[in-house]
């Protein structure tokens, strides 16, 4: 499973990081530091989905898997 963030859409709400700070790191200003394409470690797919769903502006996406 892969996830990514659209930096033009991210508003630094930080709600993804609240779900899992390791899967959804933030930069110093609170914007997502997930990057355009990040692999989700096996077994953490559910947390990844919850985190993607927590984004209030849909800046995060599940890319595949």
């Amino acid at each position: 499973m892969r996830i990514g963030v659209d930096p033009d859409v991210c508003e630094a709400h930080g709600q993804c990081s609240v779900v899992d700070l390791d899967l959804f790191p933030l930069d110093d200003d609170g914007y997502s530091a997930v990057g355009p394409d990040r692999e989700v470690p096996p077994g953490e797919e559910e947390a990844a989905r919850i985190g993607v769903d927590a984004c209030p502006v849909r800046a995060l996406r599940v890319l595949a898997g």
Partner: protein
Amino acid sequence: MTSVAIDDDLLTAEATADPYPPFARLRDQDPVRWSARHRAWLLTRYDDVSAAFQNKALSNDRVRPLLAARRQRGEPPREASAADRVLELIGEWMVVSDPPAHTRLRRLAAGAFKGQRISAMGEQIAALVDELVEAFTGGDLISEIAYPLPATVIATMLGAPVADRDRFREWSDELALVAFGTGGDARAERHERALRGLREMDAYFRELIALRRREPAEDMLTALMAADGDSAAGDRLSDDELVSMCALLLFAGHETTTNSIANATLALLRHPDQLARLRADPELIAPAVEELLRFDGPIKVLNRWVVAETEIRGRRISPGERVHLVLASANRDPEKFADPDTLDLARRPNPQIAFGKGIHACIGAQLARMETRIAVARIVERLPGLTLAAEPRWKPSLASRSLEELRVEVVR
């Protein structure tokens, strides 16, 4: 500085009953307002509040300077010793820290709040809610459902015995009393009693921590003790920090969640069309709770200290001043939300900021969401004949949006 002639007293009887009209006036006429009444800047627009969360001139470190000032002034040593211990406890809280102290505490706490751990709590929370809702035959929905639930959830998550739940509620009230300085008339006496209660809490958490060091369990306290896997030295929370963290979880997670559930229920009772919509489509609960948090969330105002000169919307803000981030106003800003005063349970997207934003976004947001979703869903489903029994009154608080009671009738 030109001052617009509007009433910015947010603690009048009218503003306590319905703060949204005064918020709208401030947003329109003076969105970055120096309020002599509150001795603080009031930020009421979404964009300004949002940017304030990232503004490094605005600090969260509010308690330690207070503690240092008390020491410098040499306040009465006897009274100060008990109060200082509690202030020290509160001063450790990550909600009143800036990076790098905040970054470290947040990293260490994050492991305990992982999505999977919270999801695993779902069944237990549902069982607790069912117990409370089934037993409810009308009366004050807050004291019977919304108030007991969060303290019990936190006690359960920390692995405290069921028999100790009531003490968690008392400590939560005492923390609020000391942290917010609420209490009214019998203030000095209540304050003293609260401090005694909190010393008990300190001892209780220390014992619980010692027990979990000997016998690790599948609970949040054990998770909080784990080392940060990313730090080379295997950094972990000290016992003092763990006590402080437990107190923070209780304090930050109790009243706010109580008010989220109560305010959401009241908003639904006042909007029967939306209540009917949720009843007809229970799948709507997730966006519904986001909208209910936006519409009348638990926190009106968050505070920041100004630590460096900064400018907001052309106003110069100076070190030493206070800034109030009016979350409840930002969440009704028409520049951000179409028809902001309309409750629309299916509103999407819904970038409400009831949980704050960025690195300080509420770490318990997922837990609070789950508790509120389960509680509101069950109240709507199991109490079909729910009606308001009395016009509710709000507590005169600047920080929180909190009902005195929510008296309802139940027809089963």
